[in-house]
């Protein structure tokens, strides 16, 4: 299978010379095309940092991260920006938007930088994405006039506008109630079904249980892995149980 992300022996420290904290210790991880991977672990285990290093947003001390065939550690800042904009999408726990733009404008923003002249096409494409995620009527609202769940879906639309190969999510359901969280997850599942690779960081077993593969982290290392396979609606509860079990084991 084709590799989208290939991280080898990633090491990452925070802090200065006197007080160094090793956040990632020799982590190696590979994400394949079309996969839906989630990362679990207690807070401080390094799961978010892993996500940021794999997406080229954070530097690493040593090791290597490849996006398809290109080594991100050798890229210049502008090249990294280009990759992030054109090939990757990001969904954050707290969606950050430009407050002075409408929701639609926020969604087209990453695409407008390169394709200003195709503004009409982009707007209708954004509109379609919004319909698909169920916020079609919010296009001309300001971000302050939408709920957290609605904004998170807008965030997903923004991540999708440039048709990325992979979407990274840093606890995208972390700030939502369970109903809203499931709706977001359904959006992710749909996107994944249509061929986009997804990597989520989460501490919610119910979220992780719906992905194909779960990585468990502790103290800066991947300590375990659970292969769940494609989701079938009937076995959700079983999958949650096995994820919870593994998680408990990791935490002890």
């Amino acid at each position, binding site marked *: 299978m084709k590799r989208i992300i290939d991280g080898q022996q990633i090491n990452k420290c925070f802090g200065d010379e006197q007080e160094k904290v090793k956040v990632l210790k020799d982590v190696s991880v590979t994400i394949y095309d079309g996969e839906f991977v989630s990362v679990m672990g207690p807070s401080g285990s390094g799961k*978010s*940092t892993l996500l*940021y290093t794999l997406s080229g*947003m*954070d530097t690493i001390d040593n090791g290597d991260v490849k996006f398809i065939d290109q080594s991100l550690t050798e890229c210049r*800042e*502008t090249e*990294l*920006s*280009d*990759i*992030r*904009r*054109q090939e*990757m999408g*990001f969904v*954050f*726990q*707290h969606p*950050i*938007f*430009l*407050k*002075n*733009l*409408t929701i*639609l*404008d926020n969604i*087209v*923003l*990453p695409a*407008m*930088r390169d394709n*200003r*002249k195709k*503004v009409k096409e*982009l*707007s209708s494409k*954004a509109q379609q994405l919004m319909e698909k995620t169920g916020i079609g009527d919010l296009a*001309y609202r*300001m971000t*302050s*006039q939408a709920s957290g769940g609605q904004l998170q879906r807008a965030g997903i639309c*923004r*991540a999708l506008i*440039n048709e990325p190969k992979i979407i990274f999510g*840093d606890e995208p359901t972390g700030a939502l109630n369970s109903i809203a969280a499931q709706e977001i997850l359904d959006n992710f599942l749909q996107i994944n079904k249509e061929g986009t690779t997804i990597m989520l960081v989460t501490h919610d077993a119910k979220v992780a249980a719906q992905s194909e593969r779960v990585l468990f982290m502790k103290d800066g290392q991947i300590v375990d892995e659970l292969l769940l396979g494609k989701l079938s609606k009937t076995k959700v509860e079983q999958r949650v149980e096995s994820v919870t079990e593994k998680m408990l084991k990791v935490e002890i």
Partner: protein
Amino acid sequence: MYFRMIRNDFLRNKLISITTMLFIAAATALVSLVAILTVNLSGSIDTLMKQAQVPDFLQMHAGDIDKERLKSFAVENENVKAYQVLDFLNIPGSKIQLGENSLIDNIQDNGFSTQSPHFDYLLDLDGQPIQAAEGELYVPIGYMKDRTAQIGDEAIVAGRKFEVAGFLRDGQMNSPLASSKRFLINEQDYKELESEGTLEYLIEFQLKDVSKMNEFETAYADAELENNGPTLTSTLFKVINGLSDGIMIALILLVGVLIVIIAFMCIRFTLLTKMEEDYREIGTMKAIGLRLADIKKIYIAKYGLIALVGSLLGLFISFTFSEPLLENIRLYMGESQYSSLSILLAIFGSIVVFVLVIGYIHLLLRRFKKISAASAIRTGSPKEKTVRKNYIFLSKNSLFTTNAFLGIKDVLSRKKLFLTMLIIMVASSFMMIVPWNTYHTVSSPSFTKYLGFGEMDLMVSIYQSLEPNEKEKEVADYLSKNDSIDQYVKITSKSFKVKKEDGSEEKIVIELGDHSAFPIEYNSGNAPEKRNEIALSSMNASEFRKQVGDTIEIITDSGMKRFVVSGIYSNIFNGGKTAKANFIDNTAPTMWLSHYIELKNPDQIALETEEISQALPFAKVTDANNHKKQVFGTTIASIKIAAIIALVVALFITGLVSLLFMRLLVAKDRSTIAMLKAIGFNNQDLSRQYATRGIFILIIGVAGGNILASTLGESLAGLAISSFGVEKLTFVSHPLIYLGCPLLMLLVTLLATKLGTKQAGRIAIAENLKE
């Protein structure tokens, strides 16, 4: 405890604290400088007036004189305290050689005098009346300033050798703006020189009660005493002495006021940003029961310290910088009698600035009341006003690049935040443009139009004492045959009497001729066109209490005639009392006769001046431009200095404030910047977005500044120049001023933005997204 808090805070916000302090220092320095200069200028003028014992009333006179009649008038008039007639021996510049320099190009009426017997003394640089020994020559101070002469130089006057023994201050003719200069020599030398020049008399009076000047002038005119020449009063001497430095002070004051405004803006911006940062802490302090006054104290203490250090620094700077600026005043007019008062006033000015700053901070801190403890602790930062309406859509924009769009949109939606920077930009461009426009206006050839002169190239004048009729024909013949002259017009200055409303009569000098050929600027009304119209200089208009449209009665050869006042203009020369009309009169005494000349090729002015001087040796040929340069040179030079200082200061402010503002903005927008980077905007994109903000504000600011400069600035400059008697000034600008200044500001802003947003590149995405 306060001290430790202040120190920590200061160290954390070094750049902002130092900038604020610098602005307060600059504001204080300028305000106190204005105080020092103004007090010393007026003090020095007073000292000079007192030491020289300047006459209250001076009548210059050429021609026959009846000293007995004058003496009996002086004795009989109750208001006369002292009276004297001085000789003023006018010698052409070509006959005066000082060291290596000849005064041939000099436009001043250079005259020789002996020391006055009773008052109007010529003083040495210590303020004592000079007694010249034989062979000694004392030279007007202006020639020391422009390095025409040095002590010890050998001087040759009309073939006679003198030694330059020193320099003199002259209470009435010191200023370059005064058209005559007096040299002092020994009585014996004077007698030998007497045959070489034309004699004029200075008929001088000191009055017991200066406030009754008008009555005295009328009495003098009624007595029909000698009056062939300008009449001057002590008020005019004061004005002329103070003018050059006065304009410089006015410009410094303008810059000072603007800097005070800018300092306030800086404080406003930094304090509000700081309050926003400390929002949660303030809420916590409130929650644990600290009183509002206690919290305020911490802020007041910090800014109080900054303001105090800034004010002291400013005061120190002003004391240092006042020395070189006072030098010119001291040189021309001597020590001020109020120098200790000036220090007190400077300190007072600094205290005023300090108190204003503290007051302003108090005002800003009133916002504390609005902070609710609960919401502060919960949300951590005040809710920015959310935008509800939106009119400009990114998704409908294809005109601007996305980066430019985001920059502009941000400025439009956070108007309050950017207002500070806007005001500073407006103030800076105003500060740049107004002094340069003033400089350009005053130095432009057309400025003489405001002073009662048309825009001419040359003026050829002859005086009445030189048998006018014969010479007049000679001049007319010569001029009509000269091919290089484009056009010329004859203006005859004649002396008439005005019948005042109370029945008394007063002298008026009227320039007769065609005044449309070399038009001047009128404060109100127009040039006289009909035979029964007359234009008055502003001093005459106020003396006779006339306005445009009023009638004035003048005694002419055909008896009493009524004239309609068609216009009022400014003129500080010839005592400022002139009039213009175009009727014909054959009997009134002609005082002098002038021809205003415009050449076909203005580059040949110097050449023509020499040619005409040689062809008409009895006439005085004045190169208008050179004349202006020598009269206004000092004034124009001080305006230029002020303009250069203003330019540098404004650019510095623009740069510093942009830098500061951008850094604060980047810090404030951290999480947005991190998000933009995460979704694929690179550092260059961010730089461009911030540069757009800067440029956008700059454009609005400069536009605003330009509009203000050409409206308010024009009136302000007009106010400063109104001491010339110019009441209404229109800027003569140069495209370079309106293009160059903004361009310089643009460069500085871009550079500052580049530096200021460097930080944006270093913002780590991960840290700032996690919150």
